[in-house]
């Protein structure tokens, strides 16, 4: 597995995203904790998509296009930045099958070594 980019290297590349994304990356990089992993992916999805009215947290069963309003370019941008931050490669076939937030998290988690298994944050939503 490739090393994750350091926050010093990654943060400038995150300049186009909100501060929440930069903060989440710093925390994730330090801990490799599943909770921070989800916070980071959620922050990116919130930045590229749009939370439905009245919602404050991303739900795992949400459809990226229908619920978060992400078009194909926003999805490609999510993959572009997440591949960079998690030092992974999502091939086109995998990307095409990703429909929901959970699909995306699982596709990434397949490649990412987390300190504890994913799912804790999701179970609360």
């Amino acid at each position, binding site marked *: 597995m490739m090393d994750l980019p350091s926050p010093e290297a990654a943060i400038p590349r995150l300049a*186009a995203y909100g501060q929440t994304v930069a903060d989440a990356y710093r925390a994730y990089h330090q801990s490799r904790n599943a909770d921070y992993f989800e916070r980071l992916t959620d922050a990116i999805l919130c930045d590229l998509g749009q939370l439905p009215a009245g919602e404050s947290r991303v739900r795992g069963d949400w459809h990226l296009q229908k619920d978060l309003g992400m078009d194909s370019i926003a999805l*490609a941008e999510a993959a*572009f930045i997440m591949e960079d931050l998690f030092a992974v490669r999502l091939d086109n076939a995998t990307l095409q099958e990703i429909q929901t937030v959970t699909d995306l998290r699982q596709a990434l988690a397949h490649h990412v070594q987390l300190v504890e298994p994913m799912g804790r944050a999701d179970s609360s939503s």
Partner: protein
Amino acid sequence: MESPIWITGLGFVSSLGHNVTEVTKRLRSGMSGIVPWRFSEERQVPVHLAGALAGFDTRSSRWSNWQWPDTFEVPQKLLRSLSPQGLYGFCALEQAFADAEWSREDIAAPETGLFAGSVGSPQMAYHHLAQMHASPTWAAHPSAVISSIPGTLNFTLGAHFGVRGANVGFVSACAASAHAIGYAFDDLRRGRLDAAVVIGAEDFSAESLVPFAGMRALSVQKDPRRVSPFDQDRDGFVATGGAVALCLERASSARKRGARPYAELLGWGHSADGGTIANPDPSGGGLARAIRQTLRETHLNASDVGYINAHATGTLAGDRAELAAIRSVFHEQLDNLMVSGTKHLTGHGLSMSGAFEAALCALMIRDRFIAGNHHLRNPDPASEGIHLPRVSQEFAHRAVLSHSSGFGGSNVVLAFRPAAEQG
């Protein structure tokens, strides 16, 4: 009888200002939008002036670093896919739609089209391709294509506003947005559309503008008052960027809405020189054919034309060809004709200039004045007999022509007149 086509809304992000009131005031008073400008702090760039955009800073290729006046609310989601010209274009379109009082439903109606003139964004292309080449796998940002290629203006903004009638772009260089107006007019006249918005926009960036110095087309003057097309001392053009939008619709529907017209768009004509890429036909023959075609199409006589807004970039070859074209068509009516350029005040907006000057003509018609050639001191002898007013003046408009010429010898002439309501 066919209903006339009216210009009912305008929007500007320009060197003369970012709203109708400010642009009109500066155009009338001859307050230049050209300022001393350095495209690089480190390099000795042989360009000292530019038509800068006050309050906008889009030098960075990251949209998150861009600045714009807080009078504009730009959605973050839209910004991600934009080039600088897309940001200016959004601001100009918002103004024009508000000015024309078009609702979101009007804009997204199946009979409303968007016509753009642009050359794409060299700044974004350079940024994204450099990033791609730096990547070990040549990974390119997903917005690399849509924010940079010619067409970025129409497909980003057309999609954002939900335009459904037509969404097209024109790339005929400095004639591009004049072509956009012409073809929008044709679609309205043919009944394909009920309304059309035309947008011309150009990045204000080193990547778009400085390469013209390599063609020796840019002025090396340091004083904005020395920028003077048709003058013996002219030495090229000063560049600008920005965006200008015009709302066009049939008078019949505009009247029903109670909309007030700036002017009537009467028609247009075009031609090509059939010669070199960058140099116009020295005889002005190509532009003259476009003027004659416009007169035929609009059923005007040469004597009906009271004012021409000249292309007047300030290059020797361009100025001379344009003066020759005007002389050949209007030789017997020159006493009844006023000619001025506006690029000595605005800078040359390249692909945006056709829309920019069409909008300035609309303002001059509405407010009954013509802009002067404010910086003219020693007129080129080739202009002898052609009236080049030195200062702006009140004017009882008849028909007005606006010339645009671009690479490849492409010439476009647009014709306007006061709308019937304006008397």
